[in-house]
């Protein structure tokens, strides 16, 4: 067939993988904002109407403008990924598009609804009555949930391909769409990603108000702007730790080689330690802190649990171990750091019904946004690099999926430059928008009346 496998020196492979990593690593942050930000906005909007809260109203209007920018950039950076599916990985799409493509078609509906209702909501300020306007924002949050579910389904399918039959020539001959969508990894990957979106968005947004507080802004507007996103992220964090635990155990069962790389397990056997930090040099763990038996205990609730080692497969079938392991440790460190911060917040709130007052709390909160993004990117590296050398686990090697078009190196370099400029511009525009915050009144005057239909 047209995309049958035959050996080819994978000259394009590294450039294509790096380009995919940059564009996806960029988009995933905006995707998180697209999924979770509307919910935070609706919370502020609800407060504004229900309690006639002028500060909440200012926040909701402000956040709408930020979403307008991040959604636009997210929409087009997501489109680039759609192009790259074919530009970089024609071997994947040509052979498996009939199965792998289905979740994206479902996602298309959610994305469409998201784009439409975001426009209605942004445009509806001052043009719709307050509650109608609020309701017009609800489909955005729902579509964010559905969109996450379907697009992560596609990634889960790459880890646990299901719902199809392969013919003798290696082509997909029969497809069961529901089998594709509800594959083994769908639930834990989608749940993990959905909570990650709320953590990233909540901590990122809260961190900007934490910086404001450290600079001496103690007004109610700043406190509320901190409180809403931080509370949401603080609720998501413990759930995420639990979800991550389930996901890790599922990876142990479903993708033992990825799990071995995450935990630096060399040789199959029981009583495996958890290694914090450390790398592999000539098959030996160098550096790092060993906690004996913990890995086996976590994977199977018993130190006698046998963990499959990297040596169970040939070297050509092993992922880049150190990258996966260090990314895994990075994600865990950031995740548990955020859990501690969330606990600080939660305990203070339960005891005194108010925000922590310690400057140290706000110093940590100010870096929590970056920490959440680091955890997100590291987790993504674990999933993606840990699956290597496969693009479809056990069925298709990444080197067989890559394009044979000349020029991937050139396009990678240009992509790198464009994304540096794009990322910088996005940050500068958002910063300029927050600086205009000093002149809130001017902003509102330009936007029209604070709230309500213009008639």
């Amino acid at each position: 067939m047209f995309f049958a496998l035959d050996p080819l020196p994978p000259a394009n492979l590294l450039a294509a993988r790096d380009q995919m990593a940059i564009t996806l690593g960029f988009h995933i942050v905006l995707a998180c904002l697209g999924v979770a930000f509307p919910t935070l906005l609706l919370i502020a909007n609800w407060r504004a109407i229900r309690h006639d809260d002028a500060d909440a109203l200012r926040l909701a209007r402000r956040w709408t403008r930020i979403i307008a920018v991040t959604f636009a950039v997210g929409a087009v950076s997501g489109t680039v990924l759609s192009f790259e599916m074919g530009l970089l990985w024609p071997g994947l799409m040509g052979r498996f598009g009939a199965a792998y493509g289905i979740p994206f078609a479902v996602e298309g509906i959610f994305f469409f609804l998201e784009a439409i209702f975001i426009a209605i909501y942004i445009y509806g300020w001052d043009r719709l009555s307050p509650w109608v306007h609020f309701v017009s924002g609800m489909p955005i949050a729902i579509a964010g949930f559905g969109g996450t579910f379907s697009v992560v389904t596609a990634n889960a399918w790459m880890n646990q391909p299901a719902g199809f039959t392969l013919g003798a020539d290696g082509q997909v001959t029969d497809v069961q769409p529901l089998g594709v969508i509800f594959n083994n990894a769908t639930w834990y990957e989608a749940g993990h990603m959905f909570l990650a979106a709320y953590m990233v968005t909540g901590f990122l947004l809260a961190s900007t108000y934490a910086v404001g507080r450290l600079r001496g802004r103690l007004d109610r507007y700043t406190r509320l702007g901190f409180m809403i996103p931080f509370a949401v992220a603080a609720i998501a964090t413990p759930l995420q730790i639990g979800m991550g635990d389930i996901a890790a155990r599922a990876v142990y069962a479903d993708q033992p080689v990825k799990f071995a790389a995450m935990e630096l397990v060399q040789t199959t056997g029981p009583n495996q330690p958890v290694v914090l930090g450390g790398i592999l040099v000539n098959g030996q763990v160098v550096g790092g802190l060993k906690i004996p038996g913990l890995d086996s205990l976590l994977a199977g609730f018993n130190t006698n649990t046998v963990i499959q080692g990297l040596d169970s497969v040939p070297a050509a079938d092993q992922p880049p171990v150190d990258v996966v392991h260090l990314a895994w440790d990075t994600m865990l460190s950031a995740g548990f750091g955020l859990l501690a911060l969330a606990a600080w917040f939660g305990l203070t709130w339960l005891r005194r019904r108010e925000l922590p007052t310690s400057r140290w709390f706000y110093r940590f909160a100010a870096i929590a946004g970056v920490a959440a993004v680091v955890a997100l990117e590291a987790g993504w590296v674990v999933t993606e690099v840990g699956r290597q050398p496969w693009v479809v686990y056990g069925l298709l090697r990444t080197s067989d999926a890559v394009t044979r078009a000349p020029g991937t190196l050139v396009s990678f370099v240009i992509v790198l430059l464009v994304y540096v400029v794009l990322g910088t511009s996005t940050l500068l525009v958002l910063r300029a928008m927050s600086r205009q915050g000093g002149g809130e009144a001017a902003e509102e005057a330009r936007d029209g009346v604070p709230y309500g239909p213009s008639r």
Partner: protein
Amino acid sequence: MISEADLVAAVLWLGVTVYAVLGGADFGAGLWDLLAGDAQQGEAPRNLIDASIGPVWEANHTWLIFDLVILWSAFPVAFASVMSTLFIPLTLAAFGIILRGSGFAFRKYTQRLSTRRTFGATFAASSVITPFFLGTALGAIASGRVPAGNATGDPWTSWLNPTSILVGGLAVAAGAYVAAVFLVAAARRRHDAALERYFRQRALAMGIVTGGLSLAGIAILHADAPALFAGLTGRALPLVAGSVILGSTGLLMLVRGAARGIRPLAAAAVTAIIWGWGVAQLPAILPGSLTIDAAAAPAGTLDALIVISIVAALTIGPSLGLLFALDGRSRLEAHR
């Protein structure tokens, strides 16, 4: 006999048509933005362009995503072949898409004139580049220059050839024509006679350019893409003729200063030519290499896509209707 694959191909063609009309018009508006002159001269037309495409461009853009996902799920080999052979123009189109969208959004939310100018120029220039490269890719497919396989076509001549350049130019010109016609209607709703005249002149000029390109296209296709030419002048002739009639009627109405009906006419002229192309190359999806039936995914996938398309029509249709209705109504109110 119409197969399930034909049905999904028709859905795909429908998606391509809507994107060509609505997405094409948004790109065309970018071209008018580019040509609107300095900050003072261009303020009024740029404001109208901004207000007209601002609320709808993301929804219109989503049709492209819809087309891509249908293509790669239903006709995976065709998708992979197109994207790998046309790596260069489609990479450039992807750059154009990201610069267009972010440039537009950044301009809207920044204050400083110099920054706005930079972002505005990025938005406007990429609005011209993107449809051109997408057009060259369509020309490559239509003229049979994309064989099935992983980058098996020529990386350069597949899209640097007379037919591709023609279709690229037509994509830019037709988009600019439709955009100008839409902007005439938008200016009219605002009761802005000066802007209405401004865009009416531009619509006329671009209509003549589009017509001229199409005439030149007859000779180009005859020489460069005989199979496509035969299809367009044979089986697809009614659609091609329809496009010509709709286009010239629209031009006549513009000359006479009519407002009612010019938008549907412009949209219909574009629609007719896109379906003319589809009919001309039937039953091929990649002419000379792959038919719709041979490229089609297994029945399970096609069933799923038909269900998804029905759900999409039932949910997206009314939502889009709501968006366009609100858009039209509130603009009317805001400027009365």
